[in-house]
């Protein structure tokens, strides 16, 4: 202990310069049709990561949950007359890797390629066909829809997924966030190929994309690359803003019967949006409460003090509109009632009292001291660029991050939590056998 503290005193002096050096310079420009480009040149490895983020995810599903995810999965299943195998072959022959997905706010495609000119050219050419000329072949459409229905069978055997679905339904009511991005047994069969084609035309447009590039190419190459991607996309505007989220009016208890050895507990409500001024205080507060790993209040109470669960945590999902704040745990069934009581008590106490000065300092030191770890690879940096671009965060978001966290006080945390969270209107979801009556 003593040695640890002495080392700390010495090391704090050297801390700041090291951190400043960790933030890479971000270059940003916007193309005529609206594509927003974010670029970090990093010559250390002969690779490049290109992440395209579209406002084309589950929140845009309308009355057909799963539509965005189906569209995203079909993008590379036949392009420009080439079949899915040929499209994949063109990427894989040159060692390129393509991944993609679609949640509630963001739909993305990420390409990782070698930077040697022949490989990169073939990979980028293929990517432009994927985003710009998807054929949505009828057979691929049917197959992918059937695969998503099999995916729903997997959901039905996962207490965690069932709980998450029930939770979003409970806290978002009529808001598009209520829908599961992977769709439902009711919605998927209703989706037609035309729905997919129209969804693509509406949302996969140059005005609705953020292009993030990190790697061993220079500005000129990045400009050409971004231009090609932009030109491949149909012209079109950014998606309109999502509707506002209504706060929960009262507490709810949702019990999902499931034949499992553990009861899964999810407690929470809609909380905070990206760009909210309270976000830094919220980060620090959540770190103390349940986001800080083995030392957080929820973990030490549930795991070390009571031996109740393997994993207990809290997190929040800052989103375009207020995303959820969630406390989650899994406990043996006979302890479910006790666990809900403990979780609620830890939360209520924290909401009322805020963090102690010591807890606050520990959280701030962990967040700021660990900041370089968030930026230690190209793949992490490209992820940040996508978030900055998608949510329109300021370009100096990373440069000012440490100061913003450093400025958070215990009072700020308490005020932010009280502003965004209401203990009298929380949803509690329990997934497990014979749910306890008295948990309410």
């Amino acid at each position, binding site marked *: 202990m003593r040695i640890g503290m002495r080392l700390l005193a010495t090391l704090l002096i050297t801390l700041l310069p090291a951190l400043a050096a960790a933030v890479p310079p971000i270059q940003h420009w916007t193309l005529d049709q609206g594509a927003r480009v974010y670029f970090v040149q990093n010559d250390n490895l002969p690779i490049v990561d290109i992440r395209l983020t579209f406002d084309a995810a589950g929140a845009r599903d309308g009355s057909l949950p799963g539509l965005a995810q189906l569209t995203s999965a079909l993008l590379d299943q036949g392009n420009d007359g080439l079949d899915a195998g040929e499209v994949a072959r063109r990427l894989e022959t040159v060692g390129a890797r393509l991944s993609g997905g679609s949640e509630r706010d963001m739909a993305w495609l990420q390409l990782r390629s*070698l*930077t040697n000119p022949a490989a990169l050219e073939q990979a980028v050419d293929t990517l432009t066909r994927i985003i710009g000329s998807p054929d949505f072949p009828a057979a691929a459409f049917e197959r992918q829809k059937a695969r998503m229905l099999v995916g729903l069978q997997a959901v039905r055997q996962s207490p965690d997924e069932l709980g998450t679905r029930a939770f979003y339904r409970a806290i978002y009511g009529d808001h598009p966030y209520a829908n599961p991005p992977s769709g439902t047994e009711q919605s998927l069969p209703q989706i037609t190929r035309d729905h997919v084609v129209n969804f693509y035309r509406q949302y996969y447009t140059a005005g609705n994309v953020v292009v993030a590039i990190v790697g061993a190419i220079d500005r000129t190459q990045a400009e050409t690359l971004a231009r090609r991607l932009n030109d491949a996309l149909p012209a079109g505007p950014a998606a309109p803003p999502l509707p506002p989220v209504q706060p929960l009016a009262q507490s709810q208890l949702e019990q999902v019967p499931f034949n499992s050895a553990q009861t899964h507990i999810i407690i929470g409500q809609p909380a905070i949006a990206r760009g909210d001024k309270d976000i830094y205080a919220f980060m620090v507060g959540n770190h103390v409460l349940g986001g800080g790993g083995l030392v957080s209040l929820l973990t030490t109470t549930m795991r*070390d003090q009571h031996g109740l669960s393997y994993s207990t945590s809290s997190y929040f999902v800052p989103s375009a509109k207020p995303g959820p704040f969630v406390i989650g745990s899994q406990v043996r069934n006979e302890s479910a009632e006790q666990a809900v009581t403990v979780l609620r008590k830890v939360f209520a106490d924290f909401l009322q009292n805020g963090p102690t000065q010591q807890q606050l300092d520990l959280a701030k030191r962990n967040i700021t001291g660990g900041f370089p770890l968030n930026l230690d690879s190209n793949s992490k940096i490209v992820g940040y660029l996508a978030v900055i671009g998608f949510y329109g965060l300021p370009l100096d978001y990373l440069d000012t991050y440490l100061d913003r966290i450093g400025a958070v006080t215990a009072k700020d945390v308490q005020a932010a939590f009280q502003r965004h969270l209401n203990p009298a209107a929380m949803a509690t979801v329990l997934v497990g056998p014979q749910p306890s009556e008295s948990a309410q």
Partner: protein
Amino acid sequence: MRRLLYIALTLLTLSAPAALAVERPEIQEFKLNNGMTVIVRPDHRAPVVASMVWYRIGSSYEEVGSTGISHVLEHMMFKGTTRYPAGEFSRIIALQGGRENAFTGRDFTAYFQQLAADRLPIALELEADRMRNLRLQEADFKKEVQVVMEERRLRTEDNPIALALEHFNTVANLLSPYRNPIVGWMEDLQAMTMADLQRWYQRWYAPNNAILVVAGDVEPEAVRVLAERYFGRIPARALPAVRKPITLQTPGSRRIEVSLPAELPYLTISYETPSMATAAEAWEPYALTVLAGVLDGGESARLSSELVRGREVAAGVGADYSAVARLSSQFSFSGYPARNRTLADLEAALLEQVERVREGGINAEELERAKNQMIADHLYQLDSIFYQAMQIGMLETTGIGWRTLLEFEDRIRAVTAEQVQAVARRYLTEPRRAILHLNPISGGQG
């Protein structure tokens, strides 16, 4: 076959991208006087470091009756020493902006911290302390073993596929200790005592059974000095002789049908194969690796092209071969049937794929594509400092050695289509095969 090989080599020379020859950061290895191994991989891209202490102990060293003990001990390693009582370790690392955790595998138990590079001494001091001075206490143990049981319920018992695979492993590995779950059988967790743990700690947690791996913004010489300072004084201990367990290579075809409350039918087919540690011929694991790539290296590989698309018999399917294992390993297929297709349909389609490779081999284009993909992936892995340290630790604790990383590219390039067919013929055989069907019964809900 000759002709195909010739074409393969030509294609490779033409298109093997020159830029792949990246300068890999030099890895350096030292031995401390007490027998502890120190391996350093400098990577100066960011001012951070991943520090890991790996012990050559894991579930494959355990026997039925005390399974799960390595993993429970891993949990108990966070319960404090005289100098740093329970919670202090984690608190200090958190205070330093670090992230930390630990994991247990079949062949290793590892503890890691990720920190700003100048905080490395703190991590080393704390790890050295708990290597020797762990204070195991009954009250902590009683609670922690409950936590581990919760972990088991979460990961295995409430997950039909994990549960089915747990049973399948006892059949696929008839004698190999890989048959036991890393987390341990519930009965063994219930019977475990403090005395057992104390013995396990005394027996295996010694510097001469440990490897310190440091990757990141550090200089090897500086790490050597730090390692000497913190770990150098811990005395070596006599380690039990480790006899390689018996593994049956060709016991005969096996099949297990597991019926569980579930929704989704699931299939696994696995074959006993050598690993890099056990292969009689060094090229074989590389040929098996390339085979896995040809079958499942991407969306253009055979399984996706022919079974997911093509015949639409699978909703999802994969092939996997883990070359990095201390004992002999498995080449396996797994997947879910497409809607309106059965496990029997999928099984037949996969066995047909096996037969096709055995009989017809692979073509030059497939070989080249799989190799290019693997070599590119190998390069992409350099993007993660953490993963680089992981690779070194896994190669060392399985007895394969980190130098394998240096020859990986050349070894992969050297694999021929004939070799791929040869390992398929030699290892994807019925007497080496075990098959799992997970048949869902009446749903998990309700």
